[in-house]
């Protein structure tokens, strides 16, 4: 494997990473590390061949790298879209979910647990579990259940159990804690399909490897389509899995700039006394600490208590971020930037109108950045379209009605909701 991994053995990324979990989980993590090395890195029993076959036949890969004609013209930049929204389920999340559920099967596990924020990872995991015949339970914050009802129903359709999490603000952070608790109780036969490049080693490396198919394809496609490497790659960053997937094969290409676009929420300030950050910009304004099994950049107060994050998009609404991404930011290889709720919503409408693509609210952040900074990005830019926005329509109606979005359609017919 190439990339920025400094020691393949313990998943340390320049001091970030590690395995900060209860002892009860350590044997399972050792077992998983062994399975990761054998099957994923070593292709034992043809694991990778089966993974790639299923990504193609079940997942619909490869996804296109589409030249966005109207955006290219508008920004006077060659804009290419990596269409992960066209993966089965509607987001990049299936790449990882399929990889991990398949790995759990190779390991002889009998049950899958997962957490989800936007519901996209839960949906992908439920689909992969149904596809491979594994029982699956998904933890989801109560607030996110309300924001993402279509995905909740999709998970149930795929026969997954969806368990609401009511602690804290009822978002992704709490759902991850709750899934770790389930895993600690059932670790002997259960695999935890973590939803991003976060958590204890080997998860950050393993999830990145499953998502690296994005940049592997995009790199070949852009060379063929544009005759060379891009000047910049943009991807939104919640935990950072579509980000790391889109960046991984470009890390060694010095001429390619990489931008991790975080949720700026309503402001980049942190209210320590209230224990909240009205954003999810852990790469931009976070500090080093330990959360959910890894040392990484976090939104925390000066005592080390984790503060509640905020974003209009539940998939970015998380106080932590992947350790490798934190390391690449410290190294200066990845530039962390942010886009606020309003600009993301505007970008959501713009992409829908101008390109005929309704993006996920998460993805819309990357387009918001492109809109504001296209002049500084170089002549050829790839934007990772991490997912499609069907899941967000209810939220978008509500959020659009609440604010003055200059480019929104006439919303009056939707006053009663969908």
């Amino acid at each position, binding site marked *: 494997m190439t990339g920025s991994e400094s020691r393949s053995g*313990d998943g340390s990324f320049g001091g970030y990473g*590690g*395995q*900060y*979990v*209860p*002892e*009860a*989980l*350590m*044997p*399972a993590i050792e077992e998983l590390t062994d399975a990761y090395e054998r099957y994923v890195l070593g292709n034992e029993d043809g694991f990778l061949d089966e993974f790639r076959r299923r990504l193609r036949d079940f997942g619909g890969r490869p996804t296109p790298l589409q030249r966005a004609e109207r955006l290219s013209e508008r920004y006077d930049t060659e804009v290419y879209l990596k269409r992960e929204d066209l993966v089965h389920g509607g987001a990049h999340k299936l790449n990882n979910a399929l990889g991990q559920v398949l790995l759990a099967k190779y390991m002889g596990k009998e049950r899958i647990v997962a957490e989800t924020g936007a519901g996209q990872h839960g949906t992908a995991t439920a689909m992969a579990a149904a596809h491979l015949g594994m029982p699956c339970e998904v933890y989801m914050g109560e607030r996110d259940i309300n924001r993402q009802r279509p995905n909740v129903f999709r998970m149930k359709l795929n026969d997954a159990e969806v368990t609401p999490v009511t*602690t*804290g603000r009822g978002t992704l*952070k709490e759902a991850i*804690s709750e899934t*770790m*608790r389930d895993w*600690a*109780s*059932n*670790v*002997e036969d259960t695999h935890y399909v973590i939803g991003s490049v976060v958590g204890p080693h080997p998860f950050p490396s393993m999830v990145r490897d499953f998502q690296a198919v994005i940049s592997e394809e995009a790199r070949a496609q852009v060379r063929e389509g544009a005759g060379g490497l891009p000047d910049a790659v943009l991807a939104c960053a919640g935990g950072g899995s579509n980000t790391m997937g889109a960046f991984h094969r470009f890390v060694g290409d010095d001429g390619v700039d990489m931008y991790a676009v975080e949720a700026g929420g309503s402001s980049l300030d942190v209210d320590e006394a209230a*224990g909240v950050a009205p954003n999810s910009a852990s790469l931009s304004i976070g500090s*080093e*600490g*330990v*959360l*959910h*099994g890894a040392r990484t950049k*976090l939104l*925390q107060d*000066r*005592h*080390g*208590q*984790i503060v509640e994050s905020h974003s209009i998009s539940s998939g970015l609404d998380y106080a932590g971020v992947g350790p490798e991404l934190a390391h690449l930011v410290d190294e200066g290889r990845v530039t962390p930037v942010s886009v606020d709720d309003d600009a993301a919503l505007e970008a959501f409408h713009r992409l829908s109108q101008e390109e005929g693509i309704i993006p996920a609210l998460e993805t819309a952040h990357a387009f918001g950045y492109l809109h504001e900074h296209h002049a500084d990005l170089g002549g050829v830019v790839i934007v990772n379209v991490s997912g499609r926005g069907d899941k967000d329509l209810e939220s978008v109606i509500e959020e659009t009605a609440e604010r003055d979005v200059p480019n929104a359609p006439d919303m009056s017919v939707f006053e009663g909701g969908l």
Partner: protein
Amino acid sequence: MSDGDLSSAFADGPAFVPYLAVGDPDYESSLTHVEALERGGADAIELGLPFSEPIAEGPTIQEAVVRSLEAGMTPDRFFEFVADLDVDVPLVCMTYYNLVYQYGTEQGPRPFVERAAEVGLSGFVVPDLPAEEAGPLRAACDEFGLDLIAIVAPTTDEDRLEKLVSVSSGYLYVQARLGVTGAQASVSGQTAASIDRLSDVDLPKAVGFGISSGEQAATVVEAGADGVIVGSALVDIVAEGVENDDPTGAVADRLESLAAELSAGAERGFEQRAPEPEGESE
């Protein structure tokens, strides 16, 4: 404040080691609660410093953490609390690594341990710090003469046990069953087997996770445990007091009486233990 050595807790007979989340539901009541535990017979006390993401805790302690944080608990207040406590038994800080790591101006565990030593704490239990990540905290504990107590899980195998023992001191916290903290109606059948396989380890073994009655404490000690750790069952009493708006004194009385039951249960289990063929091990 106390400055006991942890070994004193295990010196004569089984140790009863209760846990409470510090600052739950407020600083003053919490002082009264902890002091009641000593009157009830505690041989050492685990003081929980609340962390916002307590991944090893079940609902009871999770809710206690929320109450304490909402009442303004911080690491500095926690140290103040330890200094204010009027008890003689050794005290152990139970918290999560991020709080240990962030304390003070330099990152890393040393400032936290230094401050803990100043206020008279005897050691630490850090449930999200496996042996693999324990090096820096172990080194700081050695520097200041404090203990680092490892948790042994039902899933811990021989190799891991060796690793754990190599970084721990004070006692071993033997997790009676898989999962998170929380009072249980019956003691796990895993307990006796867990204690048996630790018989060669030269540290006292205190069993916790799920113990809620004197009867259960007796069972665990009879099975060979050197001590019992009880958290959620005590925290439940605090929660009930909050729910019913009971006066602190009444809650403290109930804590003292459950502590006395648990402590007596442990003693009874010790007396019922079959005498060892080669004489007493102690």
